[in-house]
């Protein structure tokens, strides 16, 4: 969609998307998880009021929806950054010393386990347990791109490159 379009039209459209998602899943309460996944895809996180709407539409108590959304680590209840950096801390990566990479990233972006997202909503740094590419340990995922055999320096370089890219008009 064009940049010129006012943001609020986007909101309305997202709501329509949510309605479509619900319809696609036939308003079946058993399909709550795929519904939330699709909704999160739209919003990049799960706003409480949207979850409330999903609860209403699926005839579920809101506490149930909230319970599910807070159980699974893939659901985010606060917005994540534009770039989600997920550093693998699975066994293979841990043994191959993923820890210093994490430290380096957190230090550079001034984030922590408790506050994983930069204030400008640009980066989120998380750890995951095994991305299933252990042969390349340590592994780092930036959005959907897998980076293998990462070192602290390499990780910082990846972040720097993204920052430079963002600064370009």
């Amino acid at each position, binding site marked *: 969609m064009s940049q010129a379009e006012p943001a609020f039209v986007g909101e309305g459209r997202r709501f329509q998307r949510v309605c479509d998602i619900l319809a696609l899943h036939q308003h079946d309460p058993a399909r709550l998880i795929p519904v939330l996944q699709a909704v999160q895809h739209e919003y990049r996180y799960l706003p409480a009021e949207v979850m409330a709407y999903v609860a209403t539409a699926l005839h579920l108590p809101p506490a149930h929806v909230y319970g599910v959304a807070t159980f699974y680590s893939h659901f985010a209840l606060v917005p994540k950054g534009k770039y989600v950096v997920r550093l693998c*801390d699975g066994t293979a990566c841990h*043994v191959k010393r993923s820890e210093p990479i994490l430290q380096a990233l957190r230090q550079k972006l001034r984030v922590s386990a408790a506050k994983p997202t930069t204030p400008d909503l640009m980066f989120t740094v998380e750890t995951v347990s095994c991305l299933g590419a252990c042969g390349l340990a340590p592994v780092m995922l930036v959005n959907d791109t897998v980076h293998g055999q990462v070192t602290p320096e390499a990780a910082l370089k990846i972040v720097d490159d993204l920052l430079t890219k963002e600064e370009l008009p």
Partner: protein
Amino acid sequence: MRLGTQEELQHAGQAYAAMLEHCERRVVVCAGTGCVANGALDVYKSFCLGIETAGLPVLTELKREAIEAPADGGVFVSRSGCQGFCQMGPLVTVLPDNTLYTRVKPDDVREIIDATLRTGQVVTRLLYLDQRHNTPCRGVPEIPFYQQQHRFVLKSCGSIDPESLDEYLSSGGYSAAQRAYTEMVPKELCELMTRSGLRGRGGGGFPTGKKWELARLQPNPQKYVICNGDEGDPGAFMDRSVMEGNPHSVLEGLMIAARAIRADKAYVYVRAEYPLAVKRMRKAVADAERVGLLGDNIFGSGQRLQCEVMEGAGAFVCGEETALISSIEGKRGMPHPKPPFPAQRGLWDKPTVINNVETLATVPLILKNGVEAFLALGTRRSPGTKTFALTGHVANTGLIEVPFGTTLRQVVCDIGGGVTNDAGEPLSTGFKAVQIGGPSGGCLTADNLDLSLDFDSLTGIGAMVGSGGLVVMNEHTCMVAMARFFMQFTQNESCGKCVLCREGTKQMLMLLDDIVTGKGTLETLTLLEQLARAVQKGSLCGLGKTAPNPVLSMLKKFRSEYEAHVVDKRCPAGRCRALVPPDISAQKCKGCGVCLKACAVGAIRGERKHVHTIDQTLCVRCGACVSACKLGAISGAQL
């Protein structure tokens, strides 16, 4: 097109095989996650472009329409799933030459085209180099990593195009399902599985035939089958590779399981971190539906089967069957007490069979090759093969498959090529341990190198096959820190339902924290052990019951290392930062004296403008000096 009969299946397979015959060469680029991360997709593109530029006919897809008028010649460029040797990726195989190129960059493609594709020559510099004899290996059979393996379930994974149903058909795909639906009744199928001795690859090693039989006998007419592709063990990726590399084999196994219990609905539950596996499984299902392999009246048997692929949402515990069921039902993935077992009362309270990906992928092979052939593999009580994810301090990491009964030594030394240091350089000595079965498993030491890897002998020594993670650790690994790492994992992944696991793992982690930071005492060890046993005995589900395994087995095998931490406040491997004595670097110290003032116990000596030193007998490792030194001249001792 509809594939409803044996003839139709065979015809479709043969037609494809015929098309393949007409291709002069085939280039298989590994497009598993590992190789893709290393740039395999660019390599693939370079091949397509490069071959075209070179004026050779290039095929990226073998189309059915071409059957009538097969064009002779041409190079078929295809992508495959993971071939297990990701470390050496991107991998490129040229057929029929059977040449395997490793670490191929887009820039190398030109040379391969010119040499191999045009003239059948080998580009030696891209071959795998056997370090031990310093000889280049031309193909898989010569590479030590592959030599001791028996690739059975993974056989087609690294060669066929996972997105092509035809390709699966051409290797006899779905013929086992066809037999199961047309020539066998459910009871026979269950008996066949029981005779084969197949045991679940998902961790527990439960006899698959018995599980099916239990579900088959349930009177409820509505039943379900579920493929467990949640693979959460942090350091294992076998199931991923199978789902990405040969999704139809999983689906065929699932169809057979459905037949064996007369289920009409199947689910494939795939871990959220595996988007490609989700995509591949969905495509496989859609393709199978399109040709009538799924749907109503399968193979004219009157039985119907629908299949749905569901993506997990990030919870290790959902690998546990009852939690997985809750998750499919749209609930929090909290396990339920067993009994009732899912085979009695599972999804929507209906009888449900849950099998692991690898288990299901083995099923069609048993039907195809016969029970006898299967029993000939592996050991008596653990027939068949097992895939392992070999990682850690070992020269060749990757996905391997060996018959049960292979020894640890064969795996670590022959296949793995021996132990390495952190940087991946081989060490002649220095093997310390192998963690098998991930956070639920136990550790094996040098004493166990000749242990046969199978369900029973591992359980016998307090370890388990588990999902198949094999992490090799060298002597610079601190076993307390490792135990702590696994504890951290299980603690993070505990669902929080039952007291012993939720609170117990938290306390165990705190006790281990105390030990690695030098705050532990011998009592800490005793309490840790007592608590570990309670958590093991009392937890509700497998996660909690097995969470103490790493701690307990490491405590047993490496007790002295634990004692060194709590008694001598020393980390023998030198990895626990808090236990490493502070050390002033003579190069960096400018003799400013700040540390001297910071040290509360007067352990630091030194003249102004001269390098300072620390009296280790006085030092209590508080770390004050480390943070005080503005020049970063002091290392270690950080609590």
